């Protein structure tokens, strides 16, 4: 006998034994399943006894725990993924508990969108028919790797050793998994909302809304065109076009204190649910909105904020551009400590009144606490308006005694820098966030030109991003007045990312799946030049991870030049 036939014989015997073992049980009552405990198996790989469930991976490796929980491969939505050249099928309820259909939406992505190895694409194309799973056939499949159509799974799908109770719990959970489509989708439209907080300057919200509205009009025209095509040519691709939905954008304007936002958001959601939130502007922390998104499992795509949530964001429902001012504080410390100073390095910290000054200053102070050589000499809030010049004069000795003056300004950066240039500051180094980099040109003609540095967690204007020109052209041809290019581009990119995910979602309108598609596709999306690189991965929540340190420089676009490589703090 060849080794293959021995193997086949072993498998068949094992299956027969399992079937025998399971049949009497199927005749008696199977234990009642607990959905929550089933979810724990699915997402964490923990069984009803609190112990990790065991599995065999790649034929011979014992694996267990969260790294080999179902969600790792089939994802939170159950829709699977195509990754590393492997196609991981959907095990959402609507798939498992129905005979395998040969429906294009199921395989479309695997077939046409994701690049694959020849071996893998042959595998995806081969129609392996199977009936709907029952608890019994699922138990057999998980244990032996043979589905109810007697097709053998690839080795990547582990073999799970589940007892009757775990099986019943998992089965109960799988019956609920993406069983219903998410709210915010009706027969004609997908509803999105943008959150706009109180105290957001009108010119900012208008810039963002104008861009988004233009995008919606443009997109809906294209979708309308495709839908009309179905009336005339109900042939190839008609099934896919039938699932097209136009976009409808709602403005969710908030008022009052952040502590009241949750209730306001929930009321709006009850009135007309949004499938996802897109872009979004609030004056302070995004945290209250992030909490709403997490608790309602609503994806919040790319809010334009300097105050993202920074703790335990992985796998949560908000996806951010970057870590905002927290990232800038970390970049500053990284810069000051590379190479580590050999003697004590004194840092004087000034900040403006209000969120944009106080929050990063406090965060920066915390970072310094853990450093041995870089020490805070004093943290001071500087006054605004007429008192600024006097404050600077009164603190000259303190500035000269420091090695670095870190400043967290508000909109007053240029006035403060102007006041500082009036004095001889010795050889102190000044370090400010990107928001102050607009003063670079002014500084060039001052004595401070060689002493001021900015964190710059974004692409340099000297970089080449062809997509920039395309988007600029798109905006021009729509008569959009581009007052703040970065803001308009962010508004556009947020919509683009959402639209890209919708193109691949077909009729699987599930919010978790939507997020997974975005995680998967951001890295391949066209970079509009907002950041040097954009990437995500499963459960990652920041598109960009680092920044440069720049200084004022002549004959450079934006009058700045990088003095470091891209730093990942």
């Amino acid at each position, binding site marked *: 006998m060849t*080794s*293959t036939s021995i*193997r086949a014989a072993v498998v068949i015997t094992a299956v027969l034994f399992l079937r025998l073992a399971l049949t009497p049980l199927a005749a008696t009552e199977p234990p009642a399943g607990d959905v929550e405990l089933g979810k724990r198996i699915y997402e964490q790989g923990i069984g009803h006894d609190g112990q990790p469930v065991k599995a065999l*991976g*790649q*034929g*011979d*490796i014992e*694996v267990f725990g969260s*790294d*080999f929980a179902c969600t*790792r*491969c089939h*994802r939170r939505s159950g829709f699977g*993924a195509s*990754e*590393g*050249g*492997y196609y*991981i099928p959907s095990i959402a309820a609507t798939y498992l508990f129905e005979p395998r259909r040969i429906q294009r939406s199921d395989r479309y992505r695997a077939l046409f969108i*994701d*690049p694959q*190895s*020849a*071996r893998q*694409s*042959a*595998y995806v*194309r*081969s*129609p392996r028919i199977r009936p709907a799973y029952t608890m019994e056939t699922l138990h057999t499949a998980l244990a032996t790797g043979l589905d109810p159509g007697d097709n053998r799974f*690839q*080795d*990547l799908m582990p073999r799970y050793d589940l007892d009757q109770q775990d099986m019943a719990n998992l089965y109960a959970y799988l019956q609920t998994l993406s069983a219903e489509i998410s709210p915010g989708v009706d027969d004609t439209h997908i509803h999105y909302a943008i959150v706009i907080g109180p105290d957001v300057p009108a010119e900012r919200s208008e810039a963002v809304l104008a861009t988004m509205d233009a995008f919606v009009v443009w997109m809906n025209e294209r979708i309308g065109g495709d839908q009309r095509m179905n009336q*005339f*040519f109900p*042939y*190839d691709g008609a099934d896919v076009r039938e699932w097209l939905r136009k976009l409808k954008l709602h403005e969710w304007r908030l008022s009052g204190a952040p502590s009241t936002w949750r209730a306001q958001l929930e009321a709006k959601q009850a009135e007309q649910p949004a499938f996802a939130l897109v872009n979004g502007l609030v004056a302070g922390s995004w945290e209250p909105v992030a909490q709403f998104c997490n608790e309602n499992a609503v994806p919040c795509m790319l809010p334009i904020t300097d105050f993202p949530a920074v703790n335990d964001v992985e796998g949560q429902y908000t996806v951010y551009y970057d870590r905002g001012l927290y990232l800038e504080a970390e970049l500053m410390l990284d810069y000051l400590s590379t190479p580590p100073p050999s003697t004590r390095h004194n840092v004087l910290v000034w900040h403006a009144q209000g969120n944009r000054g106080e929050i990063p200053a406090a965060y920066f102070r915390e970072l310094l606490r853990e450093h041995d050589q870089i020490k805070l000499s004093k943290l001071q809030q500087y006054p605004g308006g007429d008192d600024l010049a006097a404050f600077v004069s009164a603190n000259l000795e303190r500035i000269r005694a420091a090695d670095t003056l870190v400043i967290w300004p508000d909109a007053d950066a240029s006035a403060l820098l102007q006041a500082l240039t009036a004095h001889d500051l010795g050889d102190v180094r000044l370090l400010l966030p990107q928001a102050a980099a607009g003063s670079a040109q002014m500084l060039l003609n001052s004595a401070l030109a060689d002493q001021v540095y900015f964190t710059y967690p974004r692409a340099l204007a000297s970089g080449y991003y062809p997509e920039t020109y395309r988007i600029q052209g798109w905006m021009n041809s729509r008569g959009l007045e581009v007052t703040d290019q970065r803001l308009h581009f962010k508004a556009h990119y947020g919509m683009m990312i959402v639209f890209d995910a919708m193109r691949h979602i077909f009729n699987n309108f599930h919010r978790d799946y939507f997020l997974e598609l975005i995680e*998967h*596709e951001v*890295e*391949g999306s066209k970079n509009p030049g907002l950041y040097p*690189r954009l*990437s995500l*991965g*499963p*459960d*990652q929540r920041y598109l960009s*991870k*680092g920044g440069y340190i720049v200084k004022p420089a002549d004959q450079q676009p934006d009058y700045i030049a990088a003095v470091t*490589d891209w730093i*990942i703090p």
Partner: protein
Amino acid sequence: MNTFTSTIKILAWVLVVLLHTANEGFAAETADNRQNTTAKKHQSYVRSSHVYQVPEVTLTTAHGDQVNVAELFAAQESTIVSFVFTSCAGVCPMISATMASATKGLDPIDPDYAIYLVSLDPEYDTPERLSSYAERFETGSKVHFLTGEVEAIRELLQAVDSVYEGGNKMNHQPITLMRVGDSEQWLRFDGMMTGKAIATEYERAKDLSQHPSMASR
């Protein structure tokens, strides 16, 4: 819509449908081929052999040390290399677990080897993230994780002909590279390997490097 354009469109659709049917026919054929090959040899990877020039780029270990990759890969008798990233959904945890388990089979054959798992997501996979990942997978002292500048890793990927499509790491394919003895020849395995398969291939490669005449067998 005038009649001319609609005629053209109908013709176009007829063409699309025809092409579609032809394509389905092809798909079935490939699937048949596949079944034939799997029935013959139950192997989930493809072996090939290449001369690769490992570039002199600097990468960072999970301990934060800077290393020259060309020197590192040449520092021991045999070197095994694969590519992963910590947030990767299914394939990478499996590769990491496989490497950890492979060491049990490799050690008795000849312990003078090292395994390097290079991150495809260096910006996210900081040394701290990699060292906690290594701990979680109990990869042991023979398996080393590497990260570094995006450009350096891209250069390495180019040198070993493993650049993934569309600049998107999600499209990476599982590969294992193996260099045995002082030969410049690298064995390349495309596809998922078991720990046993890695040990078997290692043993075979060692035999070949010690008795080159067996190469013709």
